[in-house]
């Protein structure tokens, strides 16, 4: 029972903090919407997307790019929560969390769950705006995508947690954008289908194939159409716990981050 109370409090606090900062929701939405409304509009003419599962017909580019942008919302949210973990640590409120008598691995997992909940709220807000703009998915897709969002949120959130346990100072965070976020996003199937990338460069296509973020995006793409992409789901479900394990080790008191700080 006390475990559940603790989980609810950590998730609740994260949601409260999120809702207290409307600018955070706006910036979470503006980024993918610029891609959708500006970038995709330009590409609509230049890039035709052939019929490939899960799509049953020719689709405009703006429909293709939506799962990638959902992935982007979750990726940025994961980095934002990991940034707030580094901030929390410098400001000390992380210390409060870690003095709870519950096991450390559980506290770290609760923090991860909280990040996932916030990212799912952001994704649905984005999907809502995209729907208003006419870029919709089948109605049932909005339900079937939920488990995929949780799984992808877990993988990306765990990556964020792991990074936050490794980063010593807030200032180092800019490097994460350059060396983690941008490569993960651009070297994936978020913006272009793999066959299209392969036409341009075999090497980049190969890199996209080993990028776990590609699998997260493909899992969401299929789930949004009520379909199941087994390989993508397996990869996401394997990588997520691995990264989480790394984060839990990073936050354990014997190897921990705070030791380096003092």
């Amino acid at each position: 029972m006390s475990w559940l109370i603790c989980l609810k409090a950590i998730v609740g606090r994260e949601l409260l903090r999120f809702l207290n900062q409307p600018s955070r929701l706006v910036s979470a939405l503006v980024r993918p919407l610029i891609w959708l409304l500006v970038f995709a509009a330009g590409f609509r003419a230049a890039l035709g997307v052939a019929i490939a599962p899960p799509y049953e017909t020719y689709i405009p580019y703006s429909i293709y790019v939506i799962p990638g942008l959902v992935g982007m919302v979750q990726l940025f949210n994961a980095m934002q929560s990991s940034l707030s973990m580094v901030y929390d640590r410098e400001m000390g409120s992380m210390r409060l969390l870690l003095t709870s008598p519950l096991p450390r691995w559980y506290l770290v997992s609760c923090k991860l769950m909280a990040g996932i909940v916030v990212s799912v709220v952001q994704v649905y807000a984005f999907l809502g705006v995209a729907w208003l703009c006419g870029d919709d998915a089948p109605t049932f897709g909005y339900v079937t995508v939920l488990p995929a969002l949780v799984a992808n949120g877990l993988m990306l959130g765990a990556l964020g947690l792991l990074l936050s346990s490794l980063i010593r100072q807030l200032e180092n965070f800019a490097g994460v954008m350059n060396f983690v976020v941008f490569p993960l996003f651009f070297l994936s199937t978020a913006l272009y289908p793999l066959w299209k990338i392969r036409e341009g460069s075999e090497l980049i296509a190969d890199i996209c194939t080993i990028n776990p973020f590609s699998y997260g995006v493909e899992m969401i793409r299929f789930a949004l159409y009520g379909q199941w992409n087994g390989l993508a789901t397996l990869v996401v479900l394997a990588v997520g716990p691995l990264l989480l394990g790394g984060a839990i080790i990073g936050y354990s008191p014997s190897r921990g981050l705070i030791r380096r700080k003092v």
Partner: protein
Amino acid sequence: MTLALDVTGLTYSFGAKRALDDVSFSVERASFTALLGPNGAGKTTFFSLATRLFDAPAETIRIFGRDIRRHPGEALAQLGVVFQEPTLDLDLSVVQNLRYAAALHGLRPAAAAQRIERELTRFGLFERRNVKARSLNGGHRRRIEIARALMHEPALLLLDEPTVGLDAPTRRQLVDLVHRLCREDGIAVLWTTHLVDELDGDGDRVVLLQDGGVKARGTVAEVLAAAGAVDLHSLFTPAAVAVS
């Protein structure tokens, strides 16, 4: 009788640098103990070990008989902590901050609400329960942090230089407040400080920490005698240290 805090032969190093060297002392139930030492003496390192921010060697720190290394959950459940850095969430209200801390210790909402009301009333801040922490002054924020540390009714309260950045009257109020907790609730307190004027007469016990080691411990009078100092202010002068 089991001691509230029992530190035995605690040695801790950061790489080659030894931060604590064979530190031993204890805190009895319902007593006020000051861990006194200049900056860099090892107080914060000790504090971080006692609150399990990093691991202490086994069997060196016991809280009510529970080794913090082997039984961290049970040890931490007995422990209330006030950190040196402010750790309130400034964008949340006083009540939201307290509820969060209560939930981290697994308190049910109804029990938490009761304790929040009790502690805020005791600390004279009940009227301000719904304001954001940001709008409180430094002294009030500290009181809220102490109230927060008491949510799960710990039997041992650790405070790491809680008066840093506060003016003299506010500091005095906090010292009095925490002494009251010892008397009225029977809470054991370990208060780390480098300010000797935060000690309150003969009832308090002192552990004098310097260069990572315990130089003297006991009542104020005993520590003064051991260090050959006439008053607490002269404790940190080179002559006094040489005598000890």
